[in-house]
Each structure stands twice: as C-alpha cells, then as structure tokens.
C-alpha cells in the first residue's frame, strides 16, 4: 500500500508505478471475491448434490407398501420398512419421555435458581456431553442395559438416544428460558404468586415455542443416529413391540442394506434414506422458522 514519491512533484514514472500497483491491488481484490463466492457456491452445490441424489434414487421407490410392509427375505422383490419406521418412532418416543423432563428440569434449575458454581458446572458438563461421540454413547448404553440383560433390546436403544438428547434439550431449554423477560416473572411474584406457579404458568408457557423447538431439534438429531443403535436396538426383520427385544430402526436398515451385496437392498437403502431425510430436514426447517437464527437478530 506504500507509494513511492521521491520528490515534491510526482514523476510520470512513479505515477505509472502507482497506477500499476493500484491495478494489482484491485485484481487481488477481485480474485479474492471470486474465491470466496466459489467457496459458498461449492458448499451449497455439495448439499444439493447429496439431497438431489437421494431424492433421485429414493423418491421413485416410495409407495404405501414400502412404508408399511415388512422386509422380504433376500431374493424376493418388494418388501418395506414399516417395522423400522415404527421402531424408530417407538424408541425415540421413549427417549423423549426420559430426556425431556430431565433436560427441561435441569434447565429450570440453571436459569430460575441461579446457584453459581453448581449451575456453571452442570452447564459445562452439558457442553461436554454434546461432544461425546455417538459410538461411545452406544458403548455406554451397551454396558448399562444390554450387558446386564444379556441381550439386545429396544429399551437400550432408547437409553442411548436419551443420552444424546439430554444435553441438547438442556442447552436449548436454558436459552429459551433466558429469553423470557424478567419483568414477567417479577410481575407474577409481585402479585403474590409462588415461584413454582410463576415458573409453571408464566415462564414455561411464554417460552413454550422455543422449548418445543429445542425438543424437535434433539429428536431430529437422535433419529438419524446409527452408531449407538448398532449394539443396542440391533435391528429386527419382524414386527416387534416388546421393548426388551431387538427392534428395527430406520438408520440401521439403511446401514445394513447399503453395505449388503444385493441391488434390491441398495434401492431400498436409497428409498429409506429419502424417508429419513424428509423427516429430519422437515423438522430442521420447522425449528428454523420458529426459532429465528441469532445471526439475524
């Protein structure tokens, strides 16, 4: 950025030099702009490439039978993922029943009864727990439920999902509660309403949309997890509603079919992926539209 001016008057030569330098700086700036836009385009292109391919391969296979039927034995055409859809739903529902009270309850403690070290410590642990690899969560659920029971079970899968969901629910719930204006709490307390009723009837209803968003986010995250299901829920080719027995889930079916040797399995893996992507992305878009990104604010 330094220009060379040797004397009081600017010589023709140095003026030309300065101009050339300016042109070079402008060129660098243009090149940088092109590079930065190319990065963004690349990211979006990869997303569209992946989603587009899943839709292209999977959407055509979807029909009522695929969504409701049991898998057929190898070699027979047709069959579906009905049991896996139901299995995923059952396991996630049980995980929600375990994780939501725990996560929201802890968030209430952190935000409504600030207690210094304990609160900060718990929030710190929650941050750590979100970073635990999902396969490790699977090992924990195995050691906690499968090993004592001596066989794979749906309930162990639910425990694994709950481990993944609790910190997400806690962190999003804490953010949700933090957004409730303290004037509302103070108004309620000033009217003589006890703290617990203030929380249950003022704070929670006001933040209910944001709370729900966090819960949906946690469900979407859990629904796509495969690694913790490998040695907990394990998968099952039949209908099963017994929580102490192995149960099929959608990601497990995708994994088994994708790594299997049959073309028909690959087709079904794409179709099952299409179903999973639709569910996960719909919930992600849903939460996005409810909870405005912090970036916009």
């Amino acid at each position: 950025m330094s220009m060379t001016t040797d004397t009081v008057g600017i010589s023709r030569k140095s003026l030309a030099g300065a101009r050339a330098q300016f042109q070079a700086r402008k060129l660098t700036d243009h090149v940088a702009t092109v590079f930065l836009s190319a990065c963004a385009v690349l990211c979006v292109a990869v997303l569209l490439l992946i989603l587009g391919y899943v839709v292209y391969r999977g959407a055509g296979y979807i029909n009522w039978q695929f969504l409701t039927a049991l898998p057929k034995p190898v070699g027979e055409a047709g069959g579906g993922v009905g049991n896996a859809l139901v299995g995923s739903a059952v396991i996630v529902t049980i995980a929600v029943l375990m994780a939501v009270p725990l996560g929201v309850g802890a968030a209430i403690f952190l935000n409504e009864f600030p207690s210094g070290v304990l609160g900060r410590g718990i929030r710190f642990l929650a941050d750590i727990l979100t970073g635990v690899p999902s396969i490790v969560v699977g090992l924990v659920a195995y050691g906690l439920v499968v090993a004592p029971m001596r066989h794979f079970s749906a309930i162990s899968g639910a425990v694994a999902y709950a481990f993944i969901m609790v910190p997400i629910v806690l962190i999003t719930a804490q953010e949700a509660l933090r957004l409730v204006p303290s004037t509302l709490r103070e108004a309620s307390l000033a009217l003589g309403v006890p703290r617990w009723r203030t929380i249950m009837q003022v704070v929670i209803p006001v933040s209910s949309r944001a709370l729900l968003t966090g819960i949906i986010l946690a469900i979407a995250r859990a629904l796509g997890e495969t690694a913790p299901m490998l040695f907990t829920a394990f998968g099952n080719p039949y209908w099963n509603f017994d929580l102490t027995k192995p149960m099929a889930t959608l990601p497990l079916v995708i994994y088994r079919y994708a790594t299997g040797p049959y073309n028909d399995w690959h087709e079904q893996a794409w179709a099952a992926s299409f179903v999973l992507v639709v569910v996960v992305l719909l919930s992600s878009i849903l939460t996005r539209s409810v909870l405005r990104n912090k970036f916009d604010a």
Partner: protein
Amino acid sequence: MAKARADIKPSSPNTAQVVLGFLGFRHAGTANWTDNLFFGFSRLFALAIIAMTIVLLVVLFQGADESIRKFGLGFLVGTDWNPVSEEFGTLPTVIGTLVISFVGLLLAIPVSLGTAVFIALYAPVRLRTPLSYLVEMLAAIPSVIYGLWGLFVLVPVIRMVQIWLKSHFGWFFLFSGPANYGTGVLAAGVMLAIMITPIITAISRDVIRAVPRSQIEAMYALGATKWETVWNVVLPYARGGIVGAAILGLGRAIGETMAVTMVGGNAFRLVTSVFDPVHSMASQIASEFTEATYSLYVSSLIYVGLVLFGITIVVNLLGQLLIWRMSKGRVTMLE
C-alpha cells in the same frame, strides 16, 4: 432475575417442610413448601446431569477394566490387533483416526472459512440468512446417509482421481499402494471434510461477525480494499475463534462413525499412503463390536472407546476454550 426472589421469612415450619428440609429440599428466602419441593426437584434433575456423566465414565472404565488390567497403557502404543492370539493394541487406529481427520480438516478449512467470510461480509444482506440455513442443513443430514452417498457416488469418483494420481504422481510416497479400490484415507477424508464444513463455517461466521465494525471501517478509511481489510484486520482479529472452530470440527471428525465405516475401507494397519484402507477408532468399534466373541475382545473395544472419548474431550475442551476467550461466551457449540 435472582434479585426478584420474594424475601419472606418462614414463620413456623410445618411437618412437610421439616421433612423436606431434612432431605435437602430447601431454598433460601421462600416460605412456601411447594416452592421448596419444586426447587428440590429441579435441583434433582440438574444433579442427574452430573450423575449421567459419572455413569458414563464408570460404565466405560468398568467395561474396559479387563483390557486395562491386561495391557495397561501399552495398549495405546500396541500395533497388533489379533483376536485369535488375544493381542490387542490401538496405535494404528489412533493414527488412522488422526490422519483422516487432518485430511478432512485440511480440505474443510479453506472452504469453510471462505464461506464464512462470504456470508458474514460479502453476500447481499437478503442472501445471508438463506445461505446460512443451507450450509447448516449439511449438518442435519444423518451420517449414515453421508455414508450411503459416499459409498455409491463419492467412492467411484475418488477411485478415478486416485488412478489418475497414481499414473501421474505414482513416484510420490503418499501415492503408493493400489489405487483402484476407491475406499480409503482419501475417501474418508473428503467425506469428513463435507461433514465438518457446516460447524466450522457456522462458528467462524459468528466469530467474524464479532469483529468490531470500527476496525473494519478504519481500514476502509485508510483506502484498503475489501480483501485487504479481511486479510489484515478481520482474520487476524478472529484468529483465536477460527482456530477454535477448526478444533471443534476436528473433534466432530474424530468421533464420526458411520460414514468412515462405510467409505474408509476398514483395515487395521498403519497407514502410509492416501490410498490405504483405514480404520478409525469409531469405525473399528462399529464394525467389530457385535462380532467380538469373548470378554477380553469386547473389553478391548470398549478400551478403544475410552481412548476415543478421552481424545474427543481434550480436543473439544481446547476448541471451546479458544472460542470462549474470543467471543466471551456468546458463541456456543450447538450453534
């Protein structure tokens, strides 16, 4: 908020209050016993988070116990993994994990950073939010679907690239070994790069947004071009946070399981070339756990999980710390 607490002195405690108080259900400044009960329950839930963490550690250590007793810390430097002779060591998978994660990071950092700068400073205001959404959507795609896509779309492409590299640069030591499988270090690295791009982009973007506007304006006032401003002011200012974002991306990559299992080639050996099939710690657990037939084998796999857990925690703490220092707690890991 805390100051709003109603300051009523308890008059005479009733029986329920005494019993609950004895159990630790107590909250200073409230006379209402239902309030105490409520406080007690919410604290119980909060303490359950601590219990969860302890359970996690206890279960892992208990499961790995047999293997820890047998191999001790030598497990970390052992290069054998032989279920038949009951010899287990995890050095090749640790190295495999780090190698593919660094390949992923190397590919992801320029693109993520470029996208973050573009979204934060270059894109038209109306495009910023949709662009952020789209990039973060990459994070919402389940990893098994990345694996499926990687297996059927990416691996054939990588295979062609590898064959080309082999025929033109085969003399280079990183390009030795058979190139025609497609699955291996390169495929796993590219897969991981795609998967960690959203987290690095999102955090870098927030960190870049935290650069004071006055610094940027000052550069413009001095006649700097936009790129000169980005290069000389924005990036140096945000450096700590960007490094933190990259480290969190690394943490994500290290723990990634399904996609690596599906495109990594799953071979237990020290990698020497980018074409080599590779096992990460997570992919080894995923592919062998249900086939482990005796307790020492299972225990050794859980030991691998424990090592993986330890490495991820250290990496994540480091990343979180850097971002906290830079943004003073405004940017969190979930974003």
